Structures are given as structure tokens and as C-alpha cells.
């Protein structure tokens, strides 16, 4: 089996730990965080399963290395790619999967070619008929062809052409050929296409392997992504920072709120325990620790085109906030504002969330340009009554009004009711107030920060921790 092959490593210096480390390295470039502990676990797990069974082998690795659904998907692809790269090498260096024992040279005789052609045609027919084995056979054949024809040295396109020409398999029937030749009947088009796709993959894997460095290619992330369907690579950093923000907001303002005595709830259990020291007479009164208050957060996030570059970041922040806070309501806006709190609570996955937002949240009317005036007006109707001094408003947006009414009055009214208002602007401070940016009109009512990556978010949180936020 291929996986066992990968690890037997005859004649090659690579041992199991080496290969595993290389594989872990590949996973790390995809953004999985894999430490030594995980690797040790993986090795221990591999010691317990049957390597000849590819499902068990892979399952053991997956259970120890990829610990979320997102990671699982990346793991699947990376595993496949790693294995391909390894087995392609082996197919070239070692015996071919053809049992006939023919001499393998870099050029094949016509008879051998005919035999090969028959096998390929057979396997393709099997594949089209839905034979579960056919896929593996096709892959083996592809590897064999690459090795036998001496392909896999040049560019993928050239090699593919070489093999295609040698095989000369076509979908259309060619009655001029002798009976028994699979080309006479023609080969099903879809099967042929699938086989060529396999060939291409094998060739690519070989190229990656030869060039020495591990298949880092582009991160899978980039391939799968249209608009932000994946959080920032440093989502972990955002999450960490948001956790800090949470602590900050939880304790915020409390230190100034009068003397200690204003908060006195008797803690019966601890008081009685303390009374043990005085023979059961409660002399020392213990009070309940101050409950960190639960901040109520209102996040209002711009998702218009002018901030599209920053929207991955914004959505990541939103996502992380939902992980950290229980009492949070989220809104997105372009021309209109739409509440997405429920969406965020239901959709745990970034991709689904962002697709959901773009599909279901009614945020734009016609133009797709931000209309702050209308947004603040709507928002006032939506949440003004829910805001109080414990609530924090967090606005993520660039304050570019496209020449429309900024609605400062409404914003001020909102800010007045809310305990604290922060504005994170994805543009450098230098660009504020140029063009249609009206940051200046909002600034008196909120604390504004420039912020478009995790590093800056951290700075913002540090800033919040240092400077007492002023009450507006």
C-alpha cells in the first residue's frame, strides 16, 4: 500500500520521524499549529495502528495532528499532496506496478505500449462504470507511464503531451484500426479527462519533489478563497487580542466607581469557613468577589467595497468577538444596516459566516456605497433603547460617506447613550478626512484608532489598557 511504501523508505535516508517532521512542516505552512507534543502523539498513535490500512494510518495522523474541522480539511489536501509526491518518486525509482515483469526502459516498445494502452483503456472503462478499484489502478498506471516514458523531467505540459501522444487514446472511434485495439472503439471522454487530470497531478507532484523544497506552492488558503471565506492567517492572534480586550472591557471603569463598600454581598460559605478559625463565631466577614461585569457589545461593521481589503480583518475580529463574548450584537452595513447576531451565533465557521452574510444580510440597496447617515438613523431605531452605560459600541469602518450625509447628530445620540464608543478605521490616519472621509466629524464622540491587522489591534488594546477611556 502506498502509505506503507512511504514509510518503509528502503534505500532512502528518510525514516518515519523524518518524514513526519517534513509532513508537519508542510502542515505548518498551511497554518496549522503543530508542536512537538502533537508529533510525539502521532508517532505513538502510529505505533498502535495497522500501517497497511491507509484509513487507519491517515486516521491516526488526523486525530493527533488536525484538531478542528478547518484543520481537517487542510490536512486532507496536504496529506494527499505529500503522499503523491513521495509515491511518485518511488514509482520512478522502484519496480513498476506492472506484474508482467517487462523490462522497463526509458523507451517502450510498440508491443509494451499496446499492452499498456489496453490496461489504461480497461481501467478507464472500469472507472466510468464506477468500479471503486479503478481509481487506484489509474493512478498506478499514471505513475508507471511517467516513469517508463522518462517523463517528469521537463515542464508538466510538455510531459503530458508526450504521454498523450504515446498512448494515443481518443474519445472518438477509429474503425480503421485492427480489432482488439482499444482505440478502435474509442475511450469515454469523461474517463479520459479524469485520467489526464491524474497524470497532471502526478507530474506536478514530481516537479515539486525534484525541485527539492516541499510542496509549499501557494497556501491552499489562497486557492480556495474568493472574498474572505477564510479568516486571517493570524486569526489566533486576533483571538488572543480579543481575549485581552474582553478582560479590559470587563474591568473597565470599575476602579473608579466609588469606594469598595458600595459593593458588599455577603459570601456565606466563605464567611463560615473563616469563622472556623474563631471557633465558629463569624468575626471576619467575607464578601463575594466583585463579579466582573459582563460588557454588552454592539459591533457595527462596514462591509462595503471601499473596505473590502480590510473586510477579512473585520470579519475575523467579529468572529473572534463572538467567541469571546456572550452578550454581543453584531450589525453589518453598507447602505442599510442589518443585524447578524443570530447568524454569528449559528455559523461557527468563518467561511459559512461570510457567505451567509453576503447572501442573506440585506445591507445594500442599489448603489452598494456606504450611507452613514441612513445607517446611524436605522441603528438608532434598532438599538438606541438597548444602549446604556454598560454597553460598548465598536465601529469598524472607514468613515467614507461617498458624499452623503454623515448623520453626525444620530451618531452623537448613540454615542451619548453608550458607555464607550471605539472606532477602528482601516485607513492610515494620514488619509483620514481627505476625500469623502468624514472621520473628523465622528471623532469627538468616540475614540478612533487606525487598525487593519492583528498587530494594530493589539496596539489598540494596549492603548485602551493604558489610557482610561473617557466617558462621553
Amino acid at each position, binding site marked *: 500500500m502506498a502509505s506503507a511504501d512511504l514509510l518503509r523508505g528502503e534505500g532512502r535516508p528518510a525514516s518515519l520521524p523524518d518524514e513526519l517532521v517534513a509532513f508537519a512542516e508542510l502542515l505548518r505552512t498551511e497554518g496549522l*499549529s503543530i*508542536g512537538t*507534543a*502533537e508529533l510525539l*502523539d502521532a508517532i*505513538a*498513535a502510529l505505533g*498502535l*495502528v*495497522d500501517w497497511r490500512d491507509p*484509513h*487507519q494510518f491517515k*486516521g*491516526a495522523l*488526523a*486525530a*493527533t495532528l*488536525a*484538531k*478542528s*474541522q478547518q484543520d*481537517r480539511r487542510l490536512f486532507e489536501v496536504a496529506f494527499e499532496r505529500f503522499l503523491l509526491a513521495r509515491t511518485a518518486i518511488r514509482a520512478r525509482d522502484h519496480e513498476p506496478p506492472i506484474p508482467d515483469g517487462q523490462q522497463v526502459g526509458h523507451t517502450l516498445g510498440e508491443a509494451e505500449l499496446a499492452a499498456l494502452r489496453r490496461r489504461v483503456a480497461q481501467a478507464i472503462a472500469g472507472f466510468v462504470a464506477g468500479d471503486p478499484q479503478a481509481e487506484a489502478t489509474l493512478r498506478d498506471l499514471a505513475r508507471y507511464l511517467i516513469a517508463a516514458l522518462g517523463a517528469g523531467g521537463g515542464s508538466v505540459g510538455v510531459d503530458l503531451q508526450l504521454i498523450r501522444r504515446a498512448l494515443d487514446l481518443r474519445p472518438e472511434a477509429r474503425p480503421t484500426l485492427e480489432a482488439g485495439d482499444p482505440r478502435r472503439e474509442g475511450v469515454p471522454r469523461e474517463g479520459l479527462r479524469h485520467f489526464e487530470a491524474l497524470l497532471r497531478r502526478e507530474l506536478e507532484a514530481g516537479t515539486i519533489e525534484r525541485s527539492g523544497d516541499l510542496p509549499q506552492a501557494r497556501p491552499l488558503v489562497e486557492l480556495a478563497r474568493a472574498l474572505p471565506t477564510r479568516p486571517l492567517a493570524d486569526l*489566533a492572534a486576533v*483571538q488572543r487580542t480579543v*481575549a485581552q480586550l474582553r478582560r479590559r472591557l470587563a474591568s473597565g471603569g470599575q476602579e473608579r466607581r466609588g469606594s469598595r463598600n458600595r459593593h458588599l454581598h455577603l459570601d456565606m*460559605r466563605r464567611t*463560615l*469557613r473563616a*469563622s*472556623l478559625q474563631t*471557633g*465558629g463565631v463569624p468575626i471576619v466577614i467575607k464578601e463575594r468577589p466583585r463579579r466582573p461585569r459582563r460588557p454588552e457589545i454592539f459591533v457595527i461593521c462596514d462591509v462595503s467595497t471601499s473596505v473590502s481589503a480590510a473586510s477579512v480583518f473585520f470579519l475575523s475580529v467579529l468572529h473572534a468577538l*463572538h*467567541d*469571546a463574548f*456572550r452578550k454581543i450584537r453584531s450589525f453589518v452595513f453598507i447602505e442599510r444596516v442589518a443585524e447578524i447576531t443570530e447568524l454569528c*451565533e*449559528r455559523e*461557527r465557521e468563518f467561511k459559512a459566516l461570510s457567505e451567509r452574510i453576503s447572501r442573506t444580510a440585506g445591507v445594500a440597496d442599489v448603489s452598494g456605497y456606504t450611507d452613514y447617515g441612513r445607517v446611524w438613523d436605522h441603528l438608532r431605531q434598532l438599538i438606541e433603547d438597548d444602549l446604556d452605560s454598560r454597553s460598548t459600541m465598536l465601529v469598524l469602518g472607514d468613515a467614507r460617506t461617498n458624499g452623503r450625509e454623515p448623520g453626525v447628530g444620530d451618531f452623537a445620540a448613540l454615542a451619548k447613550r453608550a458607555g464607550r464608543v471605539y472606532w477602528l478605521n482601516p485607513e492610515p490616519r494620514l488619509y483620514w478626512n481627505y476625500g469623502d472621509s468624514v472621520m473628523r466629524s465622528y471623532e469627538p464622540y468616540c475614540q478612533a484608532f487606525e487598525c487593519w491587522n492583528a498587530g494594530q489591534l493589539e496596539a489598540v488594546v494596549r492603548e485602551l489598557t493604558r489610557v482610561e477611556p473617557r466617558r462621553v
Partner: protein
Amino acid sequence: MAVTTGQAGAAGQGLGGEDAEAVAEGLAAVGYLAGPETALVSYLALRLEKPVLVEGPAGVGKTELAKALSRYTGRPLIRLQCYEGLEEAKALYEWNYRKQLLRIQAEHEPGWREVEGDIFTEEFLLARPLLQAISASEPVVLLIDELDKTDQEFEAMLLELLSDFQITIPELGRIAARTRPLVVITSNNARELTEALKRRCLYLWLDYPSPDQELRILKMHAPQLKEELARKLVEVVGMVRELDLKKPPSIAESIDWARALVLLGANDLDAATLAQTLSVIIKHRSDLETVAARLGLSDGERRPA
């Protein structure tokens, strides 16, 4: 939080089976049909003595897996149900201060030293699930259910337990596990668990079962249901899960549905039967409407079962 003793399964003697297949068979024997991955991870967890983190949508049998493991291994199940605001005193241990108080008052003129040594002993300790699991004399299965509902701080507290299987009590010192419990942690993915916790666990993603597997599960739990009907039921449930619902039907609900159909003596899953029984698997009004629209049931046909 109750300790329930599972009836000792056939394989209860050893520490799990010889390989993943043996575990799968063992689990099936106690009424849990595990997919290959589930069996493999359970097997690894038993052999490596590592905690398992099970994630997946609600109602795919995450909790059930822990119970089945308890039955299969014949170990008692200790369950810690997590909720928002769960704190150490409820999860780990608490001093039984009433008893301590009584102890002090019962003896007049006690020397403080003796009393202090006296009242901070295990006798006055109220063991909560986590401490129970650690100090049990025989190995147990510890189920930490819906960990995602707790705060991140609580998770941090678990780390010592999960990696070293020990708990530190200031007055008593370290309590190390006498036996290693098999820990199963479930999460509905309401929030991302921390890296530190994941690092210490094996990971299992449980998804809705494949139609074949669900069919087998139905057969196991509602054997009277006709094959043909069961097949249709699985098909409908699968389709309903594809829809954009507030709460997609879980396995438990498809079992309920199967049982309801048996009770009603239904022979076919036609429009009328569907309309009557749909509320078994759909629990939200808006969901009901979505599904009804998709299945082409008009409003008039839909009545509560």
C-alpha cells in the same frame, strides 16, 4: 453528575480491544454503531490514555459515544455537564464547611493544631465530578459535556487535569490519579476551544452519519420499521438536513420519527403521513415552514401530530 455504573460489557476486562475493528464491534455490541474513524479514535484513546475531544453538530451522538464507551469498557461513567458560569467549586471540589463547623463545635476545648489537621482532610472534602474521576479506585470514563458552554478560564483549569491527571488542592497538596480515567470532552462548537486544550487531546469530528449508517442505526433502535420505509425516512432526513434550518434533525430525532411511524402503523411515507409527523423532527415554526415548502406540503395539510 451522578455516577452510573455501566453494566460490564463483554470486553470489559481489558483496556479496550486489540485493534480499531474490535473496538467497533465492542461498541456495536453495546448499542452504538461507530463509524471507522470513531472506532479508530476510541481505540487510540484507550490505548494512549489520552483525552478525546469530540466535536460536531448537535445530536450526532457525541454524548452517546461516551456512554457507550463506558458500557463497552465496563467502567463507571462520571459526567460533568458544563454550563455558562460553571466554577471550580461545582466541578472540582469544595470543603464541606458545615461538617467542619460541626466538627469544631462537637469538641470543646480542642487544640487548634489538632483541629486544623483534622478538618482539612478528605473526610471534609466534597468531591465534585472531576475529583471523583481522579480519585476513583477503579478506572472510570469521565464525560465533560459541552465544554464550549463554559468560560475560557474554566478550560485553563482543566489543563492540569488533562495532561497530568492530577489536581492540586492547596490544603492537601497534589492528588494524583490512582487510575487513568478515559476522558471524553464534547463541544458543540459554540466557540473555539483553546489551543492549549486541543494540544492535549485527540480530536474526533463526528458528523451526521452516512445514509447507510443511519439506516443501520434505525434498524437497531426501531427494528419493527419496514426496510422500505426506513430507507425513505433516511432519505427525507438527509434532505431536510441539507436545508437551511435553525435546528437540523439529529439522529435521536430520526429514531423518534421511526418509532412514531411504527406506532402509527404507517405503511408509506406519503404526504399525509409526512404532514402529520413532521413535527417530530422539526422543532421550529420557521423551520417547519421551510421544510413544508421544500416537500411541497400546503399549509392546510399540516397539522400537529
